[in-house]
């Protein structure tokens, strides 16, 4: 059973609908005593990093997430929150992955990046059956540079992290809940981990 962490993120409903479409079992909660019963967690995320971190703090969820031992998938801002720090509002994040999130600064590129992009997927269980010509929907102004934890990369003037894994923590910068078939495949892969 998947637990969706409920902290007011903008894409929560869309993730629930996407899980319904692939007939996955899930529940949504803001309580650690409920969430700890889940086999896997999803940390959604659309909005401002500072607001999101404040909400997680207020709801007593930050330490709970840091000490989680089963698979967790951060989506979009949810992925960025797993990192050390983000330039968005100069916000200290969960610090699970020791990378820093930066703002797109290339003057040639529009910000926010908004649209469909291919990725170069690594051999990783989250990226199973994902081909290099599968498109995903991205909407973001901040990005995670590539690092040893990148399991897929995208290009927007620079190469950056489209998906990440460190131990039991997974994250995707794109929106699997809005990425048609390829997006459903990612969610199914996460369920199968």
């Amino acid at each position: 059973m998947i637990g969706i962490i409920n902290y007011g993120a903008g894409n929560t409903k869309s993730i629930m609908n996407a899980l319904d479409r692939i007939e996955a079992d899930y529940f949504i909660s803001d309580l650690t005593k409920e969430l700890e019963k889940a086999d896997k967690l999803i940390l959604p995320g659309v909005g401002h990093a500072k607001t999101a971190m404040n909400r997680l703090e207020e709801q007593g969820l930050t330490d709970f997430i840091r000490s989680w031992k089963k698979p967790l998938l951060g989506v979009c801002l949810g992925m960025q929150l797993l990192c050390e720090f983000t330039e968005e509002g100069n916000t200290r994040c969960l610090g699970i992955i020791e990378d820093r999130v930066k703002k797109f600064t290339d003057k040639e590129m529009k910000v926010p990046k908004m649209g469909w992009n291919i990725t170069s997927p690594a051999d990783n269980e989250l990226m199973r059956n994902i081909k290099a010509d599968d498109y995903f929907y991205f909407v973001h102004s901040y990005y995670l540079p590539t690092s040893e934890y990148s399991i897929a990369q995208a290009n927007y003037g620079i190469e950056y992290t489209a998906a990440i894994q460190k131990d039991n923590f997974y994250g995707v910068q794109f929106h699997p809940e809005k990425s048609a078939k390829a997006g459903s495949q990612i969610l199914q892969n996460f369920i199968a981990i």
Partner: protein
Amino acid sequence: MITKRIIPCLDIRDGRTVKGTNFKSIRDAGDPLDLAIKYEKEGADELVFLDITATERKAELLTELVAKLSKELSIPFTVGGGIHSVETAYNILQNGADKVAVNSAAVHTPALLTELAAAFGAQCIVLAIDAKFEEGEWWVFTHGGKKRTEKKLFEWAREGARLGAGEILFTSMDHDGTKNGFAIDALKQLNTELSIPIVASGGAGNASHFADVFQQAGVDAALAASIFHYGEVSIPNLKLNLKNQDINVRITE
């Protein structure tokens, strides 16, 4: 690199898809949910729903429709028409829409853009602008193209981006419904002056109009309604056509 987006637009009245020409005479074009699902299957990159219902049940009907759409669609969609407050936008976004489009309300209360961006993030906020070329200037119109304002297109677009809009959806009222091609020059200027994505709207009649607007104006996305609703242009053929001209588009099976 990200692909150029093809966006079918559905005008909604009382829960049905309708299509007018030059903002006037309106025809029925089917059930929005059925059409939306068909467009997703055909490879539409995104959908826009503009609600022109003018009854007391407007908000309720629209919220119901958004919830239904969000259950079925696995591509992003924008909802506009009568969004005039953070609260109305919240209802739409909370029910699963990805972006809200604001038009008249932002012209009257520009600070609304800042409030919306602060509440939901600029990436959720589309500034929709309807404009018409008169007396040597592009003038912004509101209320579905009925009312000319004091605002000029380029100034308003720049101001909107500064205030918090994450995308501009520009409809040329001179081109809308003509099927003679997009307002290339105005779109090119918008695309050059602004650093947020620009969606072209009004005038699409065939595949080469889309190629022109991407190649000549450089915009990020192009929107059309009737040519898709009545099957005059099919999305898979359009995308293959664009791909053959080396325009980067998302090809689906």
